[in-house]
């Protein structure tokens, strides 16, 4: 297995990605995790600005990168991720690709 695709702690599914994303986003926005739903819009529902989203991306890359070496999120794709669901789907797809 090539090192760059090595999964250190087993596969990461949508539920795990959602859990990690909620946890990190709640820390960044200083809000209760319960406010973050799959259907939540980053801007309209959670008031996340561009800097908060970049913080989230960096946090996800750091945490998921420890488990899936080489995991990154393309900045160009950020603008297309409007809801938590879209972000979870995107991350799961990137992890599986």
């Amino acid at each position, binding site marked *: 297995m090539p090192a760059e695709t090595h999964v250190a702690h087993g596969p990461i599914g949508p539920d795990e990605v959602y859990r990690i994303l909620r946890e990190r986003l709640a820390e960044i926005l*200083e809000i209760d995790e319960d406010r973050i739903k799959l259907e939540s819009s980053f801007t309209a529902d959670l008031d996340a600005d561009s800097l908060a989203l970049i913080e989230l991306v960096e946090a996800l890359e750091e945490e998921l990168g420890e488990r899936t070496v080489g995991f990154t999120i393309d900045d160009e794709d950020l603008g297309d991720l409007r809801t938590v669901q879209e972000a979870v789907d995107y991350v799961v797809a990137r992890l599986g690709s």
Partner: protein
Amino acid sequence: MSTERITVAVDAMGGDNAPGEIVRGALDAVTELGVGVLLVGQENAIAPLLPDGRVPGIDIEHAGDVVAMDEDPAAAARRKKDSSLVRCAQAVREGRAQAMVGAGNTGATMAAALLRMGRVRGISRPAIAVPIPVPAGTRHQLLIDGGSTVDCTPEWLAQFARMGREYARTRLAVDEPTVGLLSNGEEPGKGDELRKRTFSLLEKVPGFHGNVEGRDLMHGTVDVVVTDGFTGNVVLKTLEGALRAAVELVFRVLDSTPEAKEAGKVVAPLLLDAAGAFDPDMTGGAVLLGVDGVCVISHGSSSARAIVNAVRVAQECVVTGVVGRLKEAIDAG
């Protein structure tokens, strides 16, 4: 704090006068302050500015990239990981330096510090605490935010107030700092929606005095003046411009008649000496509060003297444990 020498990471490529003035300032800081300086930037630009290429107390960390003054802050901080600015923040994160100083892109400095050092829990956005001289007073005022976070929520401004109070305790040695919200009138109902909603939150902050106006700056009405980064930056630039115009006016008057010229021989040196207190280079830099490390932001046209004084501020912040005290105060509510 241990007696080990403090190392300050300095962005050698940041600012209008980089790298020449920055490197000269770093050299003077090592001599005058006894700190170590980690000069971060393009080695081939820095090394020729050092006597014999090397100086005790100064280390060079090569960074291949530079963040320009007009770049998008968040994007630059994320994408340019090999920039001198991001590498400075990374050095603090990794413990190779205890503080950083940057005179480049202010927004990018904030973003780099936030992304690499992390935030203080309970603080959503960092803010720059700028000391403002008070000619008739015995201590400075703090203006927070001086330009870090342009668009703010009322909750963020309330956080700025709490950070400003704690910083005033540490740096201005005020036991119970008073806080004012910068608005367009003293009455509680004055201001736009942001000010009105912030006012009600600040009523729960100890030491809240109420609204203050622009004319209360430099007059010590309160110890901490709270505003959003957009307004704060406009205020600072306005003060700078007004002071410069006032100085020009005084010296024109002192040059206007033979009698005035005679008086000027006595008065001018005194005025120039007094005006030194208002020279931004003498302040050096302002601290970015709310990130989990010491980050001092110096103005874009910093001279070598400004860099020395910015490093001094960074050193004092490390020695007095500004970040640790801030965390304790925020945790305590």
